[in-house]
Structure formats: C-alpha cells, structure tokens
C-alpha cells in the first residue's frame, strides 16, 4: 500500500474518532457507509467505529452482523486488544436485542480472557456488565459479587466514572435486597466520586436512587426533596431521560404520601419522557407503578392496560427478574384476585434502556 493511501486511512481514522468524540453517530455512519465492507474488514480499527455508530442509531442487527465478521478477521490477525473490544460490543448488542444468555456468555468469555491477560479495563467492563445481567435476572447476590470486582478493577485503573456507576449499581442492588444501610453507604460513595469529577448527570442519578431509598425508609419529605433536586439538575442539563427517572421517583413518593392525583401526574410525565427517549425499561417501570396506583383507585381498566404494557415490555427485554418482581407485587396487592393478563411469549427486542449503566466502548 502506498504512503498516500496510508495517509488517507490516517485521515479517515482521525475524522471518525472526532465524530465519535462529538457523539455524532449519524455523521459517523454516513461517512463510513462510503467505505466498502472488504476495506472495513481489512482495517478493523475503522470498522469498529461503524459498529459503534450503528449501535447508537438503533441499527443493532446490522451492527451485530458486522461485529461478528470483524471479530473473525481480528482473531485471524491475532489482534487481541481489538478482539476484546469487539467481544464487549457484540455482548452489549446481544443484550439490547434481548439475547441475555448469549450476552452473559460472551461477557464471561471476555472476563476469563482479560483476567488471564491482566487487562484490568476489560475485566472492569466485563464484571460491571455481568452484574447488570445478574440484576436483570433477579440474581442480586451474584450482582453484588460482580460489582465488588468492578470496584476493585476501577480503583486500580483510577477510573472515577466507573466507580460512580459500580457503587450506584451496588446501592440499587442492596436496596432491592432490603439492606438499606449498605445501599446508603454505596450511594454516598458514588456521590463522592461523582462530585469529585463534576459528573452532574451521575449526581442526579444517585439522587434519584437515594430518594427511592429514603422513600423505602419512610422519610418522604427527604425523599421528595432529593428527587426534586435531581429533577432540577436534569432540567438544567437538558436530559429528558434523567427527568423521566426523577418524575417516576416523585410519583412513587406522592403515592406513598397518599396523593394519588399527583402520583398519576408525575407518572404521566415520566412516561412521556421515557417514550420520547425510547427508554423501554423506564417505560415498563412507570407502567408497573401506574398499574398499582390505578388499581388502588378502582380504575380497573386503566390498571389492566398498564400492567399488560409493563409485562409485554419486560418480556420483550428478557428481564425475567422484573417479571417475577411484578408478579410478586401483584399477588401481594390482591392475592385472591390476580389480574387475568395474557403474557406474551416473545422476547423480541432488548432496548437501549440500560445503556447508561453498561460499560461499553
């Protein structure tokens, strides 16, 4: 290959790297769609950018096909570091597509290979993602052990953002287990790291999760104040996804305060934001809460519509742990009269919902 064509590749690499840095995935996809697949497979350093672009603009299936081809090409060339990045990408794509078992196996493989090669970054990503897989399956104790390992790995790397996410995830898991003092300790540690690096969005997410913790502990005024702080933060940042999370928390708190109309109003706003941003898990969680608030208010029809929507979304995502939790909650509300809701048997699309919690390149 001539020096001239080498320079052209360098220029292309620089352009795609800049576009990715700016989050311009449409621009990235359009730029790389002019490069032939043969060329992309010869230059996987560039091909991986097209996978990332497609993943972020919702072309997950095309991205998966390309990532498999790139992996084969890199494995043949013995490019270990790129093979791992592609493995992580393939796992996250499969996770979004609802293939949770396959995603879990790929992350286990990544963990095994990266640990043997003492590659802490890949280990940190693999264990964080395995923790989320365990959480979604309702295997919280497994999740705790994965997050413990993630904390060790991120500490070694000096990666504060990774630490914020690992501690926040750990706090959520402990809260789900009802171990509230541990949950609080992890949320506080996440907040310390988030403030250190000025990660406003992460501060907001921790505030929302803590508000739900305070709600569980029965301190509703504090829970509300925290959720409102988070909402104000997300409004300033212009982050509708975060606003949706905060509105959901405010709905739960209003419901606990016995203010049903206010709860429904907050849930509706949360639902708007979730749908606007394509956040399917949040949408399902809000519908789950709407089921209970309608049911307790006697709105049987609205309750059934909500729970059908929530179950459909959970099943589409393969979030079996959430389905179990919802069914347990439903039986708890009215053991004698469980609603007659047909459960769809499809596990079509796992959405990009958990993206902000996953560690991917």
């Amino acid at each position: 290959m001539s020096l001239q064509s080498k320079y052209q590749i360098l220029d292309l690499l620089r352009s795609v790297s800049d576009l990715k840095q700016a989050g311009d995935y449409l621009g990235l996809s359009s730029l790389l769609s002019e490069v032939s697949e043969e060329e992309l497979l010869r230059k996987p350093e560039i091909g991986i950018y097209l996978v990332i672009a497609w993943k972020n603009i919702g072309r997950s299936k095309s991205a998966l096909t390309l990532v498999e081809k790139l992996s084969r090409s890199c494995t043949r060339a013995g490019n270990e570091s790129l093979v791992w990045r592609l493995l992580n990408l393939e796992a996250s794509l499969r996770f979004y597509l609802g293939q949770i078992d396959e995603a879990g196996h790929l992350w286990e493989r990544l963990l095994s290979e990266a640990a043997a090669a003492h590659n802490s970054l890949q280990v940190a990503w693999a264990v964080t993602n395995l923790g989320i897989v365990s959480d979604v399956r309702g295997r919280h104790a497994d999740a705790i052990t994965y997050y413990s390992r993630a904390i060790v790995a991120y500490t070694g790397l000096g990666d504060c953002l990774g630490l914020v996410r690992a501690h926040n995830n750990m706090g959520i898991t402990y809260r789900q287990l009802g171990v509230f003092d541990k949950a609080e300790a992890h949320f506080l540690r996440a907040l310390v790291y988030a403030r250190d690096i000025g990660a406003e969005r992460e501060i907001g997410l921790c505030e929302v999760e803590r508000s739900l913790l305070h709600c569980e502990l029965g301190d509703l005024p504090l829970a509300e104040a925290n959720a409102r702080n988070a909402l104000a933060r997300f409004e300033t940042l212009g982050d509708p996804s975060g606003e949706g999370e905060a509105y959901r928390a405010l709905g739960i708190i209003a419901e606990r305060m016995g203010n049903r109309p206010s709860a429904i109003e907050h849930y509706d706003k949360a639902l708007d934001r979730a749908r606007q941003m394509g956040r399917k898990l949040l949408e399902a969680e809000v519908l789950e809460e709407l089921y209970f608030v309608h049911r307790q208010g006697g709105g049987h029809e609205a309750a059934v519509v909500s729970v059908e929507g929530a179950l459909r979304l959970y099943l589409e995502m393969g979030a079996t742990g959430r389905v179990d939790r919802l069914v347990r909650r439903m039986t708890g509300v009215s053991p004698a009269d469980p609603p007659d809701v047909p459960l769809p048997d499809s596990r079509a699309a796992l959405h990009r919902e958990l993206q902000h919690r996953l560690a991917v390149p």
Partner: protein
Amino acid sequence: MVRLVVISASDAFEEIWPVLAHDAGAELTVVREVSLLDPQETHCAWILSVAGEEDRSIPAVHDLARTGRSGIAVIGAVDSARVATAMLKAGADDYFALPEDLIQLRNWVVDTAEAYRRRQDSESLAAEHRGQYDFSRIVGKSPGILAAIDTAAHVIASPGATVLISGETGTGKELVAQAIHYNGPRAAGPFVEINCAALPRTLLEGELFGYERGAFTDARIAKPGLLEVANRGTVFLDEVGELPLEMQAKLLKVIEDRKVRRLGSVKEQSIDVQIIAATNLSLEDAVGQGRFRADLYYRLSVVPIRLPPLRERHEDVLLLTRMFFEQVCRDHRVPIPKLSHDAEWFLRSHSWPGNVRELRNAIERAVIMRRDPVSAADFSVDPPVQNGIASPFPFPASMRTIMRSAARSMVTHCAGNKSAAAGRLGISRKQLYALLSDPPGELGD
C-alpha cells in the same frame, strides 16, 4: 497533560507527527536530539525516527532507554526482522517500518498515551484515597474513639496482622478498615470488601476461593476468588459473624496457611493479604452458643478494635456535627445554617441508635430541606428500619427525659405541627411546649 516526543534528525515523515499527537490527545514536541529535551518534563511516549540510519542509531536507542524512560518506539524505513530485533535489544518497546506500519504506529501511540493517562488517574485516585481515609478524618476526642484510632494506626506497622473491628451498625467500621488499608504499605493493592451476610451459602465458597472451569454445572469459565483478587492488598470481611460454620473452617485454614485453592483445582496458590474482619454482633457470645468457631475468633482478634456507639461519645457529637455540616453544605453548595439552642441540646441528648451514620443523615436532611436556623424538630429521628429494636429514645434515662424525647420525636413525625403532635401524644399544647422547652442541663443531661 500528555506529551508525545519525537526525536528526528531529519524531516522525514514530519507531516505524520501532528496527526499522531492529535489522535492520542497529546501535545507534540519535536527535537533534533535527546540532549535538547527538558529532563523535568514528563512524557507519555517517545518516537525515535532513524529512517535511513538504522544500523548507526542503535547507540542512540540504548542511551534513551538507559535513562529509564518507557514507551519508546523506533521508526525506520527498513522492514526487517533483524533491525527490529536489534532495536528491541537496545531497549525500544517496539519498532515500526514506515510506510508499511503507519496504522500500527498510530495504534501504538494511542494505546501508549491511554495507558499513561490511566497510570496518572490511578496515582491521583490513590492520593485522593489517602487523603479521604486519613486517620485525621476520623473525628473525635472521646477516650473510646481515641483508643480505637491509636490501635488502628499501630496496625499499619504490622501489615500482616489480622484485625477484628467490632461496633454497632453505623459506628464507622468500614471507615477504620479503609484508613488502615490506605495509610499502610498495602495502599497500592486492592481493598476488597465482602459482605458475608449478603452472600448465600451456595455462592460464598466459590466467590471467596474461586473455581476452575467445569468445577460445577454453572462454572463455564475459571474465576479467581475474591481472596485471590485481593492479593497484596486487604480483604475486609464485613459481618463476619454471619459466616456459615463450614466456611469458618475454610477461612481459618486460609489465615493459617496463607494459601487458597480454587474449587475443582488441586493446586494451592499463595496469597499475601491482610484480613480485617468486622462484626456488629458479640462474637464471644456467638462462640459460647456454638455459632462461631473459637479458634477462628482468636485468629481474627489478634488486634481487636472496638468502636464505641455515639451514645458513649457525647463529647464528640458537636465536633462531628460541625464536620458534617461543612461537608454536606459544600456538597450541596449552600451556606452553613445556624443551629438553634434547642437543636444543639437535642444533638447532645439524643441516643443516636443509628450512630454516626444517623447523625450524618439527620444533618443532610436538615440541609436538603433548607432549614435555617435548624431546630431540634428538623432532625429526623425515625429509627433505622434495619437495626432491629432501635429506638430514638434514650434508655435507661429518667421518665422526664424519655417524655421529652417522645415529644420531640412526635413533633418531627408531625412535620413540626405542634398541635397535631400534642393531640397524638394525648397531652395539651402547653404540656408539649413545657417538654420541648426543657433546657439542657436542667435534667442532668
């Protein structure tokens, strides 16, 4: 800032250097020879361009490597295994023949800069942890806490000693464990926390000791145990009193032999870890009841540290209060509120069943709720859900003290509405005010 240094006697490939620096997010310095560099400057990567002079450049590579600098790549024009081997022998990390290896060179520069940044991040986080967990951050002047800090500080001199920290929930057991780790010689190693109560028996063994592929049905990959992960660092075994008896026997063996064996493996592996265990139970009682092995108890409590509950540290409450107000107000970017007389008195007289954690939460609550001045009623004193039979009321205490605490708790519970509080207590508003206005000291507090 990350800096890429290129040493090139000629102008060959000069158009490439800015591109490489840009992709690596680095600043670029180009010099003609090594002696022109500022020795004080830190650099992430070095590129020594020797195109056309390959064989005569080996001493220059050797000189550069001898200065102890790492991240050295040599650029030549000859694509030859003989030249590459000679450069690596002279101390280079890699050799690239241009133009053929241009993309590989670009990837090497990007990866080397990234690795350099991670080293810097890691060092800066380690320094931050040392500051965050410095013993001076454990506030208190009561004899109990001073004795605990003194013992903990002495442990640092014996980094292999096993430590047992006991204390009620919220007394800061983990903070002391981290202070021992981050202030001692193991600070650069991992601090691995294992909550023995959170992991079911079925998971615990595999997580602590690890397993080989195929050791059991779900073992699709080999996994190092957390004790192995903590090698050269510290393992913090929280709620150690909850360990099942069979695991206690295995832990005892690890402490005695300093070796672990993964499930499904025949090979033992040596580990070098400091074990710090913590408990909120009385392990002596657990030993007496046959729930905890006596031999493990004695092995763990080589250095026992007892953290006193906050009710035994009344003199520390206002010191801690001041520190938490400063910390929380800084975090929330609000001015420090004034503390009313009754609030101060309340802080000193409350029994704090949730200990330091409860005090911190009470202060954060007052700050988040934007109370100024903060009065006694602004502190949430609901008993923590997790602590079993916890009570906001001082006990043993005089009837009057208990009644006063009940009055304050009810006012808090009724969000400051004194009429509602009086109604729910079954007393008049006047009686309620009398209880609320009892000055500190008058009742012998």
